[in-house]
């Protein structure tokens, strides 16, 4: 069991997964988002090769209305 911090919330996973899998695991809208892993942006093309480890901090963002 590993614990990650996803958008500020603690989440438990059975084991380490790649980022591409994680996006689907949490039903995140993959075509709308950008992802940062431990304060570094991970390009979409690198998601399948990026492993999410215990203690990792992820920010998954999209666009909303703003000024």
């Amino acid at each position, binding site marked *: 069991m590993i614990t990650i911090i996803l958008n500020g919330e603690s989440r438990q996973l059975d084991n380490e997964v790649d980022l591409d899998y994680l996006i689907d695991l949490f039903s995140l*809208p993959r075509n709308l988002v*950008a992802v*940062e892993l431990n304060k570094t942006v991970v390009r979409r093309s690198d998601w399948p090769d990026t492993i999410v480890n215990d203690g990792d901090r992820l920010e998954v*963002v999209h*666009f909303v*209305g*703003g000024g």
Partner: protein
Amino acid sequence: MADQFSLAGSVFSSRLIIGTGKYRSFDVMKAAHAASGAEMVTVAVNRVPLDGKTESFLDHLDPKMQILPNTAGCYDADHAIRTARLAREALQTDWIKLEVIGDPITLLPDNEQTLEAARVLVGEGFIVLPYFTDDLIMAKKLLDAGCPAVMPLAAPIGSGMGVQNPSNLRIMREQLPDAIIIVDAGVGVPSDAAIAMELGADAILMNTAIAESKDPAHMATAMKLAVEAGRLGHLAGRMPKRLYASASSPIEGAIR
């Protein structure tokens, strides 16, 4: 002759840039955007909700509009830089409205952190449009850092107070005749926009004044006209202010 507005290699017919926040509905926003004639709109970067309730906000924007992501909600250079990088990844745009806030009550910019973030982001190839306090020296530093324009506030964000310090804007215009100055934040009514343009602003960015009005589409039209009127007034050149009257009709020849 068309009075076009060039910014970082893009050419705009409209000198009004508008936001996408605080609208009562997407339909109201769309009507206001269409009425405004704006060709560039701002959007914010935000965490995706984890409850699965997400829709594509960008689908509600006219695809002809250029999208300008912002770093709203960031309180230091590091967060603003990270937000800009995420926006670039998501949108494949180098454009960023840099906003580093100093405190939550006034939402006034932290100029020091803004400059620090601007230097880093310009170095990474971003087209950085910085929101900052209406200060000439800060404007010079941001331009020296490589920002293609500066975006001084008229008044605090969402305050609708209008141009609080016209002298600062006028000084900035006179001392930086070649700089692109976009007044960002604080406009409340069309006359505020006209005043900012009359003082020599190249463009105006606003959100709340339109979104929080009773009829955003009508207000957007009014803002469009005010920006155009103010711009034309600036180009035409105002008459000098005088303490005393100056007769418009001939004094000589009036009957006695």
